């Protein structure tokens, strides 16, 4: 392998971490890491010729040298630095990870007996047997080389285990914070959410950057739902605008389970978000929602896949994008209705609002149907602010700029209102409003 090959630094770092950090891993984890790095070595980084990546040029990532945060970055922060990115008035449990590793504060409260909410690193250290049956069982190494990298380098994140019938009423917030380092660092947060039969839990993930640093977050979350389990999952991505963020979520649903994911992308310079889901038994329900609001030179690529493998499952997908400046957005959606997945009901919608002439979006909705008794539809629209609506508001005394802001926020609101965690909904509302001109007047009108 040529020394300029972008894989080389990752392979080298894997060797040094293997000696310095991964030495105490259980054998199964060492095996897993080796398989993962071998897989990455084999396939390398995607290029524009790779079908699933053709709208996203990864050169800024592959040309940069990111040192593993585990080797270079600090893992603690004074509380006052965290405050701006924590949820205000939050009633649930909150785990904080700084540069990929568990940090304070760590608030765990209101959990029913037997529910485990904690650091993955700690679980791997203390009870690896509790993690082994689930880790990397669903986020496969074959599909996505970034998932392979994450698996090779994983160190910490959240491990949430909800046993049979346990209902966690208060949400669990996982906050991943990155700080600026002397040299750009990469962190590999890895989360594992297991909801056994009849269990219920709400998990929000936040990714935030402090000091507008250059860094790379490569995060993977696996969520497994047993029969009748309920998971509401949220992600609020507000990385530094110079940061790189590649995130993967894999949801696997058992019989009559109910899952939702709402993925909000506001930050990052170059962002790729993969959300993959599978129905593995009958009667499941899924809501897959997303909102990306970007500006400047930001690039955000959303790649979603819903697999109806079994009959009588319902999925609703709604992704909305707001693109300003010279930003670029991608929505790729693929719903696969497998042979035999009769009575599938699937709706996929992507809507984009372009606020500037230079902004651009590629919307690729898709349905692949191999069953004959299904109800499926998909739709995509991209447009500017409705000038008739602007005039309507102005004709009632609202000035032009405020009218445009009101209509922009109203567009986002359809997704914001789907968020059932009040602290996250209000945080998002504030973040969205703060980007709009005349936000005080907009707030009054909503």
């Amino acid at each position, binding site marked *: 392998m040529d020394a300029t090959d972008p894989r080389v630094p990752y392979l080298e770092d894997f060797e040094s971490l293997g000696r310095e950090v991964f030495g105490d891993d259980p054998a199964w984890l060492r095996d897993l890491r080796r398989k993962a790095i071998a897989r990455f070595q084999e396939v390398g980084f995607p290029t524009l010729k790779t079908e699933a990546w053709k709208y996203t040029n990864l050169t800024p990532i592959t040309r940069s040298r990111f040192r593993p945060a585990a080797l270079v970055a600090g893992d603690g922060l004074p509380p006052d630095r965290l405050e701006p990115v924590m949820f205000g008035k939050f009633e649930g449990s909150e785990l904080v990870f700084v540069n990929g590793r568990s940090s304070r504060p760590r608030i765990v409260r209101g959990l029913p007996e037997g529910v485990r909410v904690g650091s993955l690193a700690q679980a791997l250290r203390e009870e690896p047997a509790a993690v082994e049956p689930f880790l990397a069982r669903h986020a496969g190494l074959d599909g996505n080389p970034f998932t392979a990298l994450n698996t090779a380098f994983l160190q910490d994140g959240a491990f949430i285990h909800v046993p049979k019938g346990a209902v966690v009423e208060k949400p669990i917030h996982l906050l991943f914070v990155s700080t600026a380092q002397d040299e750009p660092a990469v962190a590999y947060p890895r989360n594992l959410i297991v909801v056994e039969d009849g269990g219920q839990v709400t998990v929000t993930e936040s990714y935030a950057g402090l000091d507008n640093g250059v860094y790379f977050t490569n995060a993977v979350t696996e969520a497994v739902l047993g029969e009748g389990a309920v998971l509401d999952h949220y992600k609020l991505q507000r990385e530094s605008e110079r940061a790189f963020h590649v995130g993967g979520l894999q949801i696997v649903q058992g019989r009559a389970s109910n899952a939702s994911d709402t993925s909000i992308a506001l930050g990052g310079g170059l962002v790729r978000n993969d959300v993959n889901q599978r129905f593995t038994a009958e009667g499941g329900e899924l809501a897959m929602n997303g909102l990306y609001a970007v500006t400047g030179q930001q690039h955000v690529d959303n790649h979603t896949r819903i697999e109806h493998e079994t009959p009588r499952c319902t999925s609703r997908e709604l992704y909305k994008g707001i693109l300003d400046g010279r930003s670029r957005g991608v929505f790729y959606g693929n719903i696969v209705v497998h042979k035999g997945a009769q009575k599938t009901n699937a709706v996929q919608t992507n809507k984009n609002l372009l606020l500037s002439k230079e902004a651009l979006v590629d919307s690729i909705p898709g349905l692949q149907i191999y069953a004959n008794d299904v109800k499926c539809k998909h739709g995509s629209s991209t447009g500017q602010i*409705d*000038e*008739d*609506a602007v*005039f*309507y*508001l*102005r*004709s*009632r*005394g*609202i*000035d*032009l700029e405020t*009218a445009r802001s*009101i*209509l922009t*926020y*109203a*567009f*986002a*609101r*359809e997704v914001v209102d789907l968020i059932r965690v009040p602290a996250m909904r209000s945080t998002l509302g504030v973040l969205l409003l703060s980007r709009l001109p005349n936000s005080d*007047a907009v707030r*009054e*009108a*909503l």
Partner: protein
Amino acid sequence: MALLEVKGLRARVGDREILKGVDLTVNAGEVHAIMGPNGSGKSTLANVLAGRPNYEVLGGTVLYEGKDLLVMKPELRAREGLFLAFQYPVEIPGVGNAYFLKSALNSIRRHRGEEELDAMDFMGLVNEKMKLLGLDESFLGRSLNDGFSGGEKKRNEIFQMAVLEPRLAILDETDSGLDIDALKVVANGVNTMRAKDRAIVVVTHYQRLLNYIVPDFVHVLSNGRIAKSGGRELAVELEKRGYGWVEDEAARAQPAAP
């Protein structure tokens, strides 16, 4: 001083000149009806007065309370007391009826140097007006015109007018698409707005609405000009005889250019 004084107003939409010299004077306290066949320029006149972009004024003057209306932005016209009830009110999901209206009212009040209303005062005000239009409370929580029936949209326009209390209200085909009961409710709302210091201009194709909102003056717009003006009886005559005779008369009065 007239509340509204339109002289020789010419305007186009796209490449087509639609208003070809409209003269119209409206005084406070009066109700005017502007009638005319389809395509005569009625809605264009209403929209030009409200300041809709893409409606290009080619000539003429419009004075509102003695001030040049045509240089004002649409929002300024609204704040100065002009109100257009839309023929096709726009559906805006995600913007709540009540909040939107409070925001509009307060922008007008700020402009007038009046104190802004807080939520309590505002609710007190709107409750009264809602009764007038037969709207129930759930209406306030809904998104602006979103999923409203045709009748609900028109009632919402008149409700907004009742709350914003304009000095000059222009109703653009407010009767179109309304059944007789809805028409009565809307007309009743408008009639309670009649006042000494307010003028109302009703733009309509049909005489029917004028049975309920009785105008002081009726004008027939034909081919971009006011072809005939008269009292209420003119509307009745139009109902009987149609618009053809007015157009013929106008054509005779203005022989084709040599």
